[in-house]
């Protein structure tokens, strides 16, 4: 027995979950903060550029514990090394050291904020799409597109030996032997054999087609196109959460319409006037040729800065109505980043938006006016209004 008294014990800690529970609360706080900042996050270029990657870095300053702190940035601090150093020698990457310095108190541990800026795109989608809905879904006549697969669902006494169910076969043998008072594995008989069998099942596969139309004439600058691209990015992702496959067509128009690859569609500009009926016409032809409306869930969206040849307007309205007859949802997004509109709130220019709002009243027609990036989120909510806002939100 040692002279100095002490106790040593080992308790049962299996129910101790305080750390996990408070961490969950922390995660919930992060999600709340993200939700509050969705409008900013949605328009973040890093996300659009990250297509394909799973995690994006976002400058969300959340869940920092704010205190009165000194700014050590300009103040010399003491470091140490394993070998001699001399003045002028670089010490650490600036951002790391800045982080260390900005944190203040020397007692604090490193790595304070790194998880605040990483967000899985999936997680973001979950938050973003949680209250968006696809309104006016009408059941397609029949599920034309189906996939076949096999499901192992049944066990039978006859079958092919390749499909023998060893576990069940042994169980049968054990049961029979024990009932007869023999040791469990006293021989296997023909009657013990069990075989797995399969069923062919057919499940309907829901597909959607998204037709994105955009005015690519000179008046749509890179800022406007970025907004369209960002909206398109989120629309595709949203549709993908509701459909197994989403097929995309990009239709660019000036006075003529033509289909383009996605990258060129959002980056290349053309000169010329604007006749948006050309795009509607192209879309209608595409639908007629490839996508019978009774078999496909069609979505058509048109982005423009609002300018159109006045003489083309009646035709545009007429064709848009035809699109509405065929599509589950038709949307029009007017991107007006020109400062003169901002400066003159009462100025009502003769734009496509005012035209459509006067001429078309249809439950499946949605519109949005987007003046800058911060309104992308609002536009998304206008296109796919949350269940409760459907009546108010639809154009």
């Amino acid at each position: 027995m040692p002279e100095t008294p002490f106790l040593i014990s080992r308790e049962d800690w299996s129910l101790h979950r305080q750390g996990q529970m408070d961490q969950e609360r922390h995660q919930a706080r992060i999600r709340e903060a993200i939700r509050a900042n969705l409008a900013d996050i949605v328009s973040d270029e890093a996300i659009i550029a990250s297509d394909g990657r799973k995690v994006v870095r976002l400058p969300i300053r959340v869940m920092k514990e704010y205190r009165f702190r000194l700014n050590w940035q300009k103040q010399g601090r003491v470091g140490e090394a394993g070998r001699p150093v001399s003045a002028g020698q670089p010490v650490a990457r600036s951002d790391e050291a800045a982080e260390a310095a900005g944190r203040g108190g020397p007692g604090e541990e490193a790595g304070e904020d790194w998880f605040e800026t990483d967000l899985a795109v999936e997680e973001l989608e979950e938050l973003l799409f949680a209250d968006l809905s696809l309104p006016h879904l009408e059941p397609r006549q029949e599920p034309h597109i189906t996939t076949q697969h096999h499901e192992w669902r049944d066990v039978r006494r006859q079958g092919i030996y390749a499909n023998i169910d060893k576990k069940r076969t042994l169980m049968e043998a054990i049961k029979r032997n024990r009932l007869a008072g023999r040791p469990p594995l006293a021989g296997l008989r023909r009657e013990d054999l069990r075989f797995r069998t399969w069923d062919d099942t057919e499940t309907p596969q829901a597909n959607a087609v998204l037709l994105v139309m955009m005015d690519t004439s000179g008046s749509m600058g890179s800022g406007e196109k970025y907004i369209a691209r960002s909206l398109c990015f989120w629309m595709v992702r949203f549709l993908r959460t509701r459909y197994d496959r989403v097929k995309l067509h990009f239709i660019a128009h000036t006075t003529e319409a033509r289909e383009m690859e996605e990258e060129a569609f959002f980056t290349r500009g053309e000169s010329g006037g604007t006749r948006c009926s050309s795009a509607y016409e192209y879309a209608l032809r595409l639908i007629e040729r490839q996508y019978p409306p009774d078999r496909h869930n069609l979505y058509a969206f048109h982005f423009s800065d609002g300018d159109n040849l006045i003489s083309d307007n009646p035709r545009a309205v007429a064709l848009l109505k035809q699109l509405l007859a065929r599509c589950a949802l038709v949307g029009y997004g007017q991107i007006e980043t020109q400062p003169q509109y901002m400066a003159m709130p009462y100025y009502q220019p003769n734009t496509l938006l005012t035209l459509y709002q006067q001429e078309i009243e249809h439950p499946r027609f949605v519109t949005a006016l987007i003046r800058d990036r911060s309104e992308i989120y609002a536009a998304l909510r206008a296109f796919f209004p949350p269940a409760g806002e459907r009546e108010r939100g639809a154009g």
Partner: protein
Amino acid sequence: MARDLDRLAGAIGEVMDRARAAGLDFFPMRYELCPPDVLYTFGAYGMPTRFSHWSFGKAYYLLRSQANLGLAKIYELVINSDPCYAFLLESNSLLENTLVAAHVVAHADFFKHNWRFQGTNRQMVHTMSAFAERVRLYEARLGREPVERFLDAGLAVAEQIDPFPGPRSEPGRDLALFLLERAPGLADWQRDILSSLREEALYFRPQMETKILNEGWATLWHARILREMDLPPADTLEFARLHAAVLGPHPHGLNPYRLGCHLLESIEARYGRERLFEVRAVETDVSLVRNYLTPELCEQLNLYVYAEQGGQWQVTATGWEAVRDALVRQLENCGLPYIFAEDDNYRQQGELYLRHGYDGIELDVTHLTHTLRHVHHIWRRPVHLETVLGGRRTLYTCTGKDVTSRAL
């Protein structure tokens, strides 16, 4: 399992006898073996019985993920209490836990003898446990949101305390106390939270002030005690490896174990064993560095001053006086700014006027604006803070959500 426990008990008994023989004097020891997750939890909360808050959950998550990445491994947690509680990792090897036991015995000696710890509450485990229970009750009664919001605000100001409260303390030096006594219309539960958070901050403060001294002391003794023990060769090797890791330089920042241990070794070499024990009783980190850092130590440990120059962080000085002065400056007041509460009825409107005791280092403005919102949450009337930015006196004002600033 039981045999492992017996062997550990034998090793710990020997450690404690040797510690006692070397002159260490500590509280009765209570060792608890626990799984890693539990140890990370205690490490994050600073105490096994602390109240629940998301910020501790965040700290726990960070500790655990760093451990999973192999970046940091907590070996122990020791509580300043009588009896002294020490939590060991059950997955540690016998030798690791023997070393940890020697380390925490020296911490317990330090808690018992260092002057800064003389007034501390040695029953804090129970005090905190009772507070945690009251927080749970408040949450049940009032809902989680308002309690959590007030805890957020309280934690933001709780470190603004006078570390030496008493009749001679400067008025307004203790912001947490000022708010507790003068914030208009605080409910009883809010008063309880504010005063408990302040008490916890006062309890932890001496540990923040003596990080280098305390860790240096514990490292010096764990090494001496284990060197005296008759270890099998494999354990001797493992000990050498562990001890070397403890004493390695940190790539960014300062390793308190390394600096503290070398400082104390040099004090004993220069002034003898008696002075070593005196230093552990009468110094803090600031006075230890100021009184005992030598040119030889600076050179031996390759200490340097670094700062940002032209967008790059680089060594600006290696001279021992520059190092000593920069180190004392960064340890001063635990690296925190001084905030004084100057007026609780500013402009005769019941507004709060705070002043930053500027002495050459500016406040972090991002932190400042958010923290003022926290202060406003407690004060519930406009809050002002006077500081110096870019050489100009500047007043920050928070009227609720918004924070504005203007030059004075």
